[in-house]
């Protein structure tokens, strides 16, 4: 196996390198990729066409919004996949879990517990900012969502899975994730219903107080929020499933 791997690797490497000399230099502004009308258009026309200064977000959520929708789906799929691979039986022990009957596996360490108490809200606030301001400054749904999810993971780490489960139990996770995608595709289907193409936000100015161009930027915010929902939910679900080997009891 080793030798075979070596041969394969050497061959592939040689193949890949053989083309490198043909590449434009690194950072060359004249390289086809940078000089072609595609990237030019994205840089110069994004703001006029969508009134969004952050080109990445604009390309992500509008020009290539269709891609991004399926990107969200990829995350969603990962969540469900992991769940369905690891899950052994329906989670009965989660159903009958009321607030009073919650017991910690271990009594929480004071320092850790307090720090996390303080930090988690701030983290979540920052996550919201990243999402909301995604189309003006670096950020966006994925980033924000991941940060938000991380806050719950931190909670789970500082206490235990049960504690985090109280905030985002299994069922809520799935609903959040689904709703996230529903929001995203909802914008698309709304455009279809209004008689335009899927994800053609411009038409939405009919139903939102904005000019067609602003409609695009508003809708981008909307879809980013949808993405954030899914990311948040699935990030946490991936963690909790992997950490608890799928049965949502105590972590490993």
């Amino acid at each position, binding site marked *: 196996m080793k030798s075979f*791997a070596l041969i394969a690797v*050497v061959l592939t490497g040689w193949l890949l390198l053989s083309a490198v000399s043909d590449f434009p*230099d*690194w950072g060359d502004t004249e390289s086809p990729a*940078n000089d072609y009308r595609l990237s030019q258009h994205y*840089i110069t026309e994004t703001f006029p066409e969508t009134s969004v*200064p952050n*080109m*990445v977000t604009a*390309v992500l959520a509008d020009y290539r919004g269709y891609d991004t929708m399926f990107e969200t789906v990829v995350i969603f799929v990962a969540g469900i996949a992991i769940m369905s691979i690891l899950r052994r039986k329906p989670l009965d022990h989660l159903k009958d879990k009321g607030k009073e009957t919650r017991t910690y596996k271990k009594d929480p360490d004071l320092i850790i517990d307090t720090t996390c108490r303080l930090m988690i809200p701030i983290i979540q606030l920052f996550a919201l900012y990243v999402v909301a301001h995604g189309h003006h400054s670096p950020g966006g749904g994925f980033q924000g969502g991941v940060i938000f999810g991380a806050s719950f993971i931190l909670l789970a780490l500082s206490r235990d899975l049960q504690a985090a489960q109280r905030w985002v139990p299994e069922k809520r996770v799935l609903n959040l994730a689904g709703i996230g995608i529903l929001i995203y595709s909802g914008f698309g289907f709304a455009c279809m219903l209004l008689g335009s193409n899927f994800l053609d936000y411009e038409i939405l100015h009919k139903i939102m107080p904005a000019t067609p161009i602003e409609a695009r930027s508003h809708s981008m915010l909307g879809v980013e929020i949808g993405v954030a929902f899914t990311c948040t939910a699935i990030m946490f679900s991936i963690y909790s499933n992997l950490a608890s080997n799928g049965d949502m009891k105590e972590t490993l």
Partner: protein
Amino acid sequence: MELLEALSAKFNYWIYVIIMMIGLYAMISKNNLVKKLIGMSIFQTAIILFYVSIGVKEGDTIPILYHDQVHPSHGDSHHEADTGHGEDHHPSHEEIVANLHIEPDDFANPLPHVLMLTAIVVGVATLGVGLALTQKIYRDFGSIEENEILESIKSAK
């Protein structure tokens, strides 16, 4: 000398290939399922490096318009203040676009970043599923060493 030139001019393409091959080697040759997965994410990260390298331009910045390009009024509000109607004057989109001029070479090519956001997400998803499968395999076979698993399958037959 030319070789050095060539290397320095395209060094991160060379590096991406090397990293990628490390990952690929791990994926093929490692016996431990988790190590395979680690190799896999190295492999995918290398591709990200490759793509991002495409979009770089000498002396560029992140592909987000400058604040004063988008909000010219705020840019020079201090000497518009005395004329009195500066505060609530908010130029419309058309006005901004009218006197907006963008030098494409100032900004990095946004497209590769967008693509790589996708690639990252896919990488995360694949890694997650891979780990889940590994856990289930460990649960079923009591091992994550490929040869041991194959052994147990043979002995089961």
